[in-house]
C-alpha cells in the first residue's frame, strides 16, 4: 500500500505541473510594468509632422495630455485609431501623437486615409524618445499630468474597456485636480 502511494508521487507532481503550466498559459501576458510611472517624462525635442515647430517636454506643461505612440507601419495602430480619434474629439484630454520610426510621406498618407485626431504630432524618426520611454511595441499610450509626470501607461491597443475602466477615471482625477488648484 505504502509502495503504491510512493509510486504515485511522480505522477502527482507531473499533473500539478501540467495544471500550473495550463493556468499560466491563459493568465500569462507579455505586458511589462513600466518603471517610468510616477517619474517625469524624459526630456525630448522633436520636429512636428505638420505644424513646422520643434517641441520639447516643457511645451506641454499646464494641462494633462496623452502621448500616443504610433506608426503607419503598425496594423494595431490602425485598429485602435477610431478610439484615439473618439477620445481626442471628446475634448476630455489633449492627444499628442509620437510618430515612431516612420517616413514622413508614409505617416502623411496614413493620416490622410484614417484621419488625424492629434493636437500635434512629434516625429521620432530615430526612435530615441521611444527608447527613453521604454516603448517596446506600438501602439503604446502614456497619460501625463500637467507637471509632466507620467501617470499611466497602456501597452498595446486602446480598447473600449481600458479607456472606460483605466484611462477615463484617471483623466477625470487629473482634471479635478487642475480645477481645484
Amino acid at each position, binding site marked *: 500500500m505504502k509502495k503504491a502511494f510512493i509510486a504515485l508521487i511522480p505522477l502527482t507532481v507531473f499533473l500539478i505541473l501540467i495544471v500550473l503550466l495550463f493556468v499560466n498559459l491563459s493568465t500569462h501576458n507579455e505586458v511589462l510594468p513600466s518603471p517610468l510611472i510616477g517619474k517625469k517624462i524624459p526630456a525630448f525635442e522633436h520636429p512636428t509632422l505638420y505644424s513646422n515647430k520643434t517641441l520639447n517636454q516643457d511645451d506641454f506643461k499646464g494641462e494633462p495630455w496623452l502621448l500616443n505612440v504610433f506608426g503607419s507601419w503598425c496594423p494595431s495602430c490602425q485598429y485602435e485609431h477610431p478610439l484615439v480619434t473618439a477620445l481626442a474629439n471628446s475634448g476630455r484630454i489633449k492627444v499628442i501623437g509620437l510618430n515612431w520610426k516612420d517616413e514622413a510621406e508614409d505617416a502623411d498618407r496614413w493620416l490622410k486615409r484614417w484621419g488625424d485626431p492629434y493636437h500635434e504630432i512629434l516625429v521620432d524618426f530615430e526612435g530615441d524618445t521611444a527608447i*527613453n520611454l*521604454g516603448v*517596446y511595441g506600438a501602439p503604446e499610450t502614456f497619460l501625463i499630468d500637467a507637471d509632466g509626470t507620467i501617470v499611466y501607461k497602456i501597452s498595446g491597443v486602446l480598447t473600449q474597456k481600458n479607456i472606460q475602466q483605466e484611462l477615463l477615471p484617471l483623466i477625470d482625477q487629473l482634471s479635478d485636480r487642475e480645477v481645484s488648484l
Partner: protein
Amino acid sequence: MIKYITLLFVLFSMPLMAIEVYDFENREQEALYQQLAKELRCLVCQNQNLADSDAGLAKDLKDQVAEFVIAGQNADTIKQYMVDRYGDFVTYDPPMNASTVFLWFSPLVVFLIGGLILFLNIRKKHHE
C-alpha cells in the same frame, strides 16, 4: 582548383559578415558590447537576447549599447540605463526582491527536499 577553394571560403564566410559593424576602439570594447548584447533581453521577442534578435527595436537598442560602449561607459551604467527604461525584465539577471524570491529560492527548496529524501533512504538502508 584554387578558384573553387577560394569560392568555398567566401561562401562559408557569409554568416560571419552578417554581424553588425560598429567602430569599436579596441577589443575590450567589442567584448563588452558582445557581452551586453547577450545579457540584455529583446523586448519584442521576449525569449531572445538582443544579440540573437533581428527585431527593429533590438537593432535600435544594440546601436544604443554600442554608442555607450564607444563613449566609454561601463557595463553597470549601460545595464542600469536599460533597467530604468524597460524594468528588471530587460536583464537576464533578475535582482532579488519580493516578486522574485520564489524564483531565487525554489532551486534551494527542491535541493533540500531531495537531500531529505536521500537522507531518509540512507538511514532506512542502514537500519535494515
